[in-house]
């Protein structure tokens, strides 16, 4: 899959990237000009001067910065209804690379290192009760690579839950293809044991009037960096990118989002909320939204809020909105990181609730604002339980 970088699309004027040396010296002016390639050699080495690696040093990646990685040797357990088909496919398959291309070094390394991708095909007749579960379990810290493709055929409806558990050093690419008029929910849960490092690039491409709800939950793992991106192949797409994260002491949880509005009349909503507790807890949220000239009628809003429960935590929050047309419905963003509000604590304690229970209630409530939007009670319950466990873990 080593091939020339490919960025000229959707009427953008063609241009080339002359390798990483120049890219490193001249800051990129527009999000559309970022290097996209399946070839790891096209990317600059991981260093703090690279915008994408400002907050995360190569030394924390436990070897995921290497040019080539082992294939993921852990288990991928799958549960799905009969009409859903799973298969291992190679780069010759039409779905392989159809949703997006790597935009950073670990994603490119993973692309070249995973010889086959695990393809989940959701047929057109799948109804709302179609639930697919992919559970990654590993007990091996060898730097490794995995590639998943979820293809929701036109008119299908489904929920796909990707669970990551155990111990791993994993670079992952997840491609999400949402066919015309399809309605897909993807939940990605990162709940690794301490000592794990995980980078995951999740590319979604939406067809005509397609709807995607993507929920990204990062709880466990020393370093977890998820980069969800959404692009549109036709007008009328609707994407909702929701995220919840909870960082403990010395955990680094990073989320880098990109919504590429290249088609008219599409809608995007990004809502990410995170809590931080303990010394050295660090979260990063970068939300890029690009509205290209052709994307008239775009309606977009992105929001990130962080709750810092004590001193010694750090939350970086960087929204970037680039607009190339004035003919849009709306575009906005909001970002705020604040300390725990002692007035909330006082109000709850004044009703007899102990300080630790009051904290739990406030944190859970803060994150619940996102969880309430999932719309699937059993998943909401499951996530609430996971967050409660996280809170209990932090408290002890």
């Amino acid at each position, binding site marked *: 899959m080593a091939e020339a970088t490919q960025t000229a699309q959707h009427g953008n004027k063609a241009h080339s990237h002359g390798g990483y040396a120049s890219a490193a010296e001249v800051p990129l002016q527009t999000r559309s000009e970022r290097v996209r390639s399946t070839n790891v050699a096209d990317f600059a080495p991981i260093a703090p001067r690279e915008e994408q690696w400002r907050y995360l040093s190569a030394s924390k990646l436990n070897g995921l910065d290497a040019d080539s990685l082992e294939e993921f040797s852990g288990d991928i357990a799958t549960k799905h209804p009969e009409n859903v088909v799973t298969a291992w496919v190679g780069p010759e398959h039409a779905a392989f690379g159809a949703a997006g291309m790597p935009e950073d070094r670990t994603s490119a390394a993973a692309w070249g290192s995973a010889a086959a991708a695990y393809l989940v095909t959701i047929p057109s007749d799948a109804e709302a009760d179609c639930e697919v579960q992919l559970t990654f379990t590993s007990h091996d810290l060898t730097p490794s690579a995995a590639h998943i493709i979820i293809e929701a055929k036109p008119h299908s409806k489904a929920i796909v839950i990707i669970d990551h558990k155990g111990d791993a050093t994993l670079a992952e690419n997840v491609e999400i293809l949402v066919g015309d008029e399809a309605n897909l929910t993807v939940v990605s849960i990162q709940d690794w044991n301490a000592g794990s490092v995980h980078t995951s690039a999740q590319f979604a491409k939406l067809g005509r009037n397609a709807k995607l709800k993507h929920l990204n939950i990062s709880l466990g793992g020393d370093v977890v960096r998820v980069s969800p991106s959404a692009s549109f192949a036709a007008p009328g797409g609707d994407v909702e990118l929701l995220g919840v994260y909870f960082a403990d002491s010395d955990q680094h949880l990073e989320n880098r989002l990109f919504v590429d509005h290249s088609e008219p009349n599409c809608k995007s909503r990004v809502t990410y909320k995170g809590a931080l507790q303990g010394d050295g807890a660090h979260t990063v949220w970068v939300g890029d939204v690009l509205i290209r000239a052709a994307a008239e009628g775009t309606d977009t809003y992105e929001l990130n809020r962080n709750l810092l429960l004590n001193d010694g935590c750090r939350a970086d929050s960087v929204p970037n909105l680039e607009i190339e047309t004035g003919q849009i419905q709306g575009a906005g963003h909001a970002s705020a990181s604040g300390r725990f509000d002692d*007035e*909330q604590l*006082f109000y709850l*304690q*004044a009703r007899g*609730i102990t300080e630790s*229970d009051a904290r739990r209630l*406030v944190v859970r409530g803060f994150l619940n604002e996102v969880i309430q939007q999932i719309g699937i009670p059993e998943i909401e319950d499951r996530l609430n339980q996971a967050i409660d466990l996280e809170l209990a873990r932090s408290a002890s």
Partner: protein
Amino acid sequence: MTILQIKNLHVTVDTEQGTKEILKGVDLTIRSGETHAIMGPNGSGKSTLAYTIAGHPKYTVTEGEILLDGEDVLAMSVDERARAGLFLAMQYPVEIPGVSVSNFLRTAKTALSGEAPALRGWIKDLRSAMEDLKMDSGFTERNVNEGFSGGEKKRHEILQLELLKPKIAVLDETDSGLDVDALKIVSEGVNRAKGNTDLGVLLITHYTRILKYIKPDFVHVFVAGKVAEQGGPELAERLEAEGYDRYLKA
């Protein structure tokens, strides 16, 4: 019979201009079943008294004591005071995003009684208290105080008063921002709580109008951080006619 005793209470608060003494020796005794109105002009320290009783960390007690049935209230944490039977209906209730009223009330009731209330009886009590306060049944699904109107916030405070059944309640300007209809509904709630549980009430207010609906047994005029005058209900009538000017000039 419960007694709340406030003796020679001095309270300071840290401001940008340095430490400022707000309460300068307050003496008050409230017993079960009694209603005490604390009236006074803005800035006289009425709310400071309310928050100090509840234990807000912003206020520092430099002298004096607060005793609830002989127990040292000042040694208790905020939640311990509530569990001992004190309640503060707040003037500016705080929003708790993502926490539903129903979850909040059940959590508070559980904390106060030491065990989760039996579901059936609890829902019945909740519904009937809400009906009495003319609150819509969908109210419990909303997040605590989020997007509530001024009137809804005050009804929600009184709903808690009725459900949590404290021994002594401090009502901090519960009448502010209420129209006459809402004022009546909220006052009826306080009177029901008094009737049902022999509640002692410390009613803090700037205006006399709430005293038409909640009859005080005692009226204390608060000026410059201490009680300037006290008497029976007739004192409120005099304030209605004369205002606070008499005390401020003195």
